[in-house]
């Protein structure tokens, strides 16, 4: 299909310069297309390489075409060449038009479905990253509060890092959370893990946040850290119950 496109571009360009070159150019391009496609690697390669091949061949042949064109051009030839390469396909019949319309319609449906799916996924991502009521935002805020609490820093040592649940591939982005309704307001419970510079010491942060009726943002009801030592110890960072 690339070659058909290239051919069309070449045709358009040539018609502007001189119509007598048209016939010669087509012959030249046909021969060079054969040359270019002979090695399988060029074909399997990118369009750019084949374009380079063609443009290089085109440049080479322009000189020779100029020489030979003047001998072969004559009014009937010119007319024939123009009619052969300019009129294109004959006028499409009604059945052909219906088929074309049907095909275009199915393509349009496919494009719309694709756009819909893409838009949906992007909306989910934006909501997750930018909406202040998404678990990720609550996780960020909880981590910021926990990170700067002096007792936590004393227990774990700076710098403190946090992560969520481990998936199969080893990525730990998902944070375990539960959302539920209570007294007509949305509550969210969150659980993530923190580690500090203290070797081997892990902690679990539990938080519950309640949606504020006026502002719609989540406020923390409680926030505490379970330190994974023996005996287990909990650091209560916030308790707004």
């Amino acid at each position: 299909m690339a070659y058909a496109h290239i051919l069309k571009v070449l045709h358009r360009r040539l018609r502007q310069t001189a119509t007598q070159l048209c016939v010669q150019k087509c012959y030249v391009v046909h021969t060079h297309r054969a040359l270019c496609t002979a090695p399988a690697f060029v074909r399997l390669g990118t369009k750019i390489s084949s374009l380079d091949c063609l443009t290089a061949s085109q440049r080479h042949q322009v000189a020779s075409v100029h020489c030979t064109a003047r001998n072969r051009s004559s009014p009937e030839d010119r007319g024939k060449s123009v009619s052969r390469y300019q009129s294109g396909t004959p006028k499409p019949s009604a059945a052909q038009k219906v088929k074309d319309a049907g095909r275009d319609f199915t393509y349009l449906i496919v494009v719309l479905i694709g756009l819909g799916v893409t838009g949906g996924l992007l909306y989910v991502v934006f909501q997750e990253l930018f909406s202040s009521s998404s678990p990720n935002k609550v996780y960020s805020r909880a981590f910021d509060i926990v990170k700067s609490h002096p007792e936590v820093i004393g227990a774990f040592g700076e710098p403190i890092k946090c992560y969520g649940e481990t998936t199969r591939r080893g990525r730990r982005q998902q944070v375990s959370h539960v959302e539920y309704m209570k007294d007509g307001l949305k509550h969210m419970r969150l659980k993530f893990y923190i580690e500090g510079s203290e070797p081997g010491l892990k902690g679990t942060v539990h938080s519950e946040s309640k949606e504020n009726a006026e502002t719609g943002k989540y406020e923390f009801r409680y926030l505490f850290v379970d330190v994974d030592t023996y005996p287990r110890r909990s650091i209560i960072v916030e308790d707004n119950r």
Partner: protein
Amino acid sequence: MEEYAREPCPWRIVDDCGGAFTMGAIGGGVFQAVKGFRNSPAGVGHRLRGSVNAVRVRAPQIGGSFAVWGGLFSTIDCGLVRLRGKEDPWNSITSGALTGAILAARSGPLTMMGSAMMGGILLALIEGFGILLTRYTAQQFQNPLPFTEDPSQLPPKDGEQQQQKTKGLFH
């Protein structure tokens, strides 16, 4: 539940690089097999030989470019995790954008930006898909309203016990 006794991060790079190579090699192998089959002269012998030849030549190259993409993405991701100190979807999207930009570095700044945008949007789509998947599969296993009270673990009871104690004092 600790499934990995060690940190995933530096080893995740090798993991991702290898996984990407396998994906690229297998996918590219299938594609090139069909392509080589179709672009060979007529005759099953010729076609099969053409197909095998195309796979032999091109599949490792495709696998290699996928592996470079995957390895670079994972490296930048781990680097961002270490830098920021937390693991976020933001890390993935930024890593995808930076990977796209770096791999297009030979074509100038404008192409780099376009490639970065493409990489970022691709990763955003993958993240969105992952988020949807985990949300819906988690909802299947979730019992409706597992707890209506504050957790009965020890830590919050400390707060409640303290409150009760203070209440008791004023009885």
